[in-house]
């Protein structure tokens, strides 16, 4: 198992050296990237909207429940705590984990299907660097769009929290907004999350692509690769979250 792990790391590194080369045709690369942004990014907006609004609402309710017992704590602290939870962890990490499921399985299954149906061999025979042609646009699309999705998620999470707090009578909408603005530091609350989102975007794109690109066999193996892509991406996100949190906060 340990040997397999290190062999996998080696194969992944070799694949990445093939991916990060100059594209054969910039025009084709640009077109593929736009297509991937549509497929992997824009098509994920719906799930990110729903997830973020409800995540913000739940965090507000939970925080209010914990803090409401003590009359000495001002209610805007509910909003402050919600902001910290949403911007530091929930939006970057939880949304990325969900996207690892949606986008990661999509990447792995599409590349795996191309592998078993000899489409990747066809590219190689033509002289196309298939790894670069197929994987680089996906990684670039992820790197470009994931931070935008995370920014959107932060905003919607906070909005959802304020709305839920107001509707349930836990904290007034205006008071939530004031709480969100209190001691707001752009680096700590936004840049920190965006740095994480860029790292997660690379993990989702590259790890899932590796799982799909290296498939051998048929339909069953494509399914296994798709599952592996999600599991590996999620594990890598959690591990890198630990490292990044330590690096960025300390």
């Amino acid at each position, binding site marked *: 198992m340990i040997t397999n792990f290190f062999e996998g790391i080696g194969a992944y590194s070799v694949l990445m050296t093939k991916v990060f080369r100059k594209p054969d045709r910039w025009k084709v690369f640009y077109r593929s990237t736009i297509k991937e942004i549509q497929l992997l990014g824009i098509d994920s907006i719906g799930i990110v909207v729903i997830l973020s609004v409800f995540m913000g609402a739940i965090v507000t309710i939970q925080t209010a429940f914990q803090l409401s017992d003590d009359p000495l704590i001002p209610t805007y602290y509910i909003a402050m705590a919600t902001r910290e939870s949403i911007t530091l962890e929930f939006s970057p990490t939880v949304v990325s984990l969900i996207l690892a499921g949606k986008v990661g399985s999509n990447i792995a299954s599409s590349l795996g299907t191309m592998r078993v149906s000899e489409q990747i061999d*066809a590219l190689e025979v033509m002289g196309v660097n298939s790894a670069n042609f197929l994987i680089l646009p996906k990684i670039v699309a992820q790197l470009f769009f994931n931070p935008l999705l995370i920014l959107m998620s932060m905003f919607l999470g906070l909005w959802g929290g304020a709305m839920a707090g107001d509707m349930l009578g836990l904290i007034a909408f205006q008071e939530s907004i004031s709480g969100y603005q209190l001691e707001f530091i752009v680096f700590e609350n936004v840049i920190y999350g965006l740095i994480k989102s860029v790292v997660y975007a690379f993990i989702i794109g590259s790890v899932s692509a590796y799982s799909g690109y290296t498939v051998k066999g048929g339909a069953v193996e494509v399914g296994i690769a798709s599952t592996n892509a999600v599991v590996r991406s999620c594990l890598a996100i959690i591990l890198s979250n630990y490292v990044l949190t330590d690096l960025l906060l300390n």
Partner: protein
Amino acid sequence: MIQVKGIHKSFGENHVLKGVDVDFRRGETNLIIGRSGSGKTVFLKTILGLHQQDQGQIIYDGEVLSEMSKQRSKKLRQEIGMLFQGGALFDSMTVAQNIRFPLEMFSDMTKHEMDERVKFVMNRVRLEGADSKFPSEISGGMQKRVSIARAISMSPKYLFCDEPNSGLDPETAIVIDQLIHEITHEFDMTTIVNTHDMNSVLEIGDHVIFMKEGYKVWEGNSSEVLKSTNQDVEEYVFKSKLFQQVRKALR
């Protein structure tokens, strides 16, 4: 012309190719036949450079494949057309986009020139009117024709076909065979076809080699194959009742 000299290839303990020598001539349809597991596909992929041989040389018109520079090797790839067993069409692209793809990647043609070229090859393989369809929307025979059109769009010097008739009805299979044969002569290509289909052998086999257990055991042409006294070839060719009848008639 493609010359193969003393090719050996193993995968671990499995010695698949055991010293194959053969010359594939330009302007001829060269067929590789043999039972499943005889090493045909590995042989084809080794000639293509998708597998690295352990011993021996592959020579494309005087240039040794393993000694080519990276740039030359990449250039050579653009001189090769390949027809895969399953078609290997890009399913996210339409028929016209599939055929246009190699042109966009490697040629310096203008948009208009590419359109003209796509139109020409589509007419050549009789695919008129299918340009905006996706591979999933067309029949197996049409997919093979699209694959041929894509393979010849860059005017290749070498054409490789892996089981071009698999999954096709006999009538469509003959159409595909004839198309391969016609374009081989028309564009003066070196064509190598990997097949199980004896009809193909008789229909288009300008040059036929029979492989068994990693060796080339027989070489000839389509008319000689029926008269061969090689026991392995006889067993392979005359296995079916139809060909047993043919043999009776010949004798």
